[in-house]
């Protein structure tokens, strides 16, 4: 369990406001933090990492006190078991991929280095400098470096927003895999609904430094309350035009479901989007298999 109860005066674009957050996160959760820019999302992540100090409050991580203003406890960033991945990668330009990752380790562990390079599929890039890498490759290295610290908490600050759709989808899968494999508690700032749906099991919506909503992604974002009893959310794989209709293939769990749709219904929907499929309880057939 991670308990965060922090307050800090922040300078917003227009006026000063107070960040005032009290949240609890279960160990193993994948949490998304959503909100407008300037709502305090990145500040929250940096407070957990120890890069910004709250004016008052406490941060407890699985029984360890990382910060407590009353008891004057403030564990320095390098002693907090966190991995941080930024949108702009923040790799050291003068170091190779391998050196970047080793630098993050308290004790240089070459076996674990090999394991992480292999897991992130960047073994062949180990001698390369960041400037020679693509955006997707850089973010793999940044993720590898975050994992090298054997973190309890993985902090992701819009990690994929600078990448193209294909790379983003692939890296989303890998973030999910890494989260499960290392039993991490992950906190991700994201603006991308489909990313939040795909990865997180809980969302906090921030506005002016406060949590205004929290819950499962489907409860937070699917505001259109349709009476349909058969509902699935899935990811659009393909949209094909056929006569006056469109056939939309949607991945729901491991199954591809095809839905016939019309032009105005799908005009805002593109491949990769997360969508809701709803039907009335009266329509589906049911039969024993």
């Amino acid at each position, binding site marked *: 369990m991670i308990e965060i109860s922090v307050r800090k005066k922040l300078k917003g674009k227009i006026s000063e406001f107070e960040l005032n957050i009290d949240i609890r996160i279960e160990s193993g959760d994948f949490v998304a933090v959503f909100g407008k820019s300037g709502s305090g999302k990145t500040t929250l992540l940096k407070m957990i990492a120890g890069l910004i100090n709250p004016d008052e409050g406490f941060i407890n991580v699985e029984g360890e006190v990382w910060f407590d203003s009353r008891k004057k406890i403030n564990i320095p960033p390098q002693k907090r078991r966190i991995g941080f991945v930024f949108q702009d990668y923040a790799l050291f330009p003068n170091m190779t991929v391998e050196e970047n990752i080793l630098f993050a380790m308290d004790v240089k562990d070459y076996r674990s280095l090999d394991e992480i390079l292999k897991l992130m599929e960047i073994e062949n890039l180990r001698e390369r400098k960041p400037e020679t890498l693509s955006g997707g490759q850089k973010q793999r290295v940044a993720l590898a470096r975050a994992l090298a610290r054997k973190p309890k908490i993985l902090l992701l600050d819009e990690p994929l927003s600078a990448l193209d759709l294909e790379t983003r989808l692939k890296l989303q899968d890998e973030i999910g895999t890494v989260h499960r494999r290392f039993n991490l508690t992950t906190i991700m700032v994201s603006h991308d609904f489909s990313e939040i749906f795909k990865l997180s099991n809980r969302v906090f919506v921030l506005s002016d430094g406060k949590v205004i909503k929290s819950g499962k992604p489907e409860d937070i974002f699917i505001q*259109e309350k349709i*009476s349909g009893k058969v509902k699935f959310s899935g990811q659009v794989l393909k949209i094909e035009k056929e*006569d*006056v*209709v469109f056939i939309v293939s949607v991945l729901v769990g491991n199954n591809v479901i095809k839905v016939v749709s*019309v032009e105005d219904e799908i005009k805002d929907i593109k491949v990769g989007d997360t969508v809701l499929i709803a039907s*009335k*309880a*009266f*329509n589906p057939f049911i039969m024993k298999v």
Partner: protein
Amino acid sequence: MNRLKGKIKHVERSDNISLVIVDVMGQDITSIVLQGEKNPIYTVGQDVYVLFKETEVSIAKDFSGEISLRNRFHCKVKSIDTGKLLSRVNMRWNEEDISSIITTASVKRLSLKEGDEVLAFVKTNEISIMEL
């Protein structure tokens, strides 16, 4: 999907099923939903949308006799997009647009054309309700 705004006029409930009658521009549109006395969520006076898919809208021309379908809209055909097998019939009902996808063979059989007065039918179990 077709989407019309209305107000719930009456709700008839059994244990798990409700018939919800929505007033849409003075016309009763009925939806059947799995929500009965055990967890009633729809209330009289509530503003809602009624939704129905284009593929669930049947079209009749010069209709006479009785039919079980209770949701019917007197429409005027605005335009027809003709495909090889399927066609989309765009209609005007009061101030609203309603579309139907039927087979191109049916469009020919009814000799549907722009300006035709038609009845559009939707089965009660094909109407969904969405809260505003």
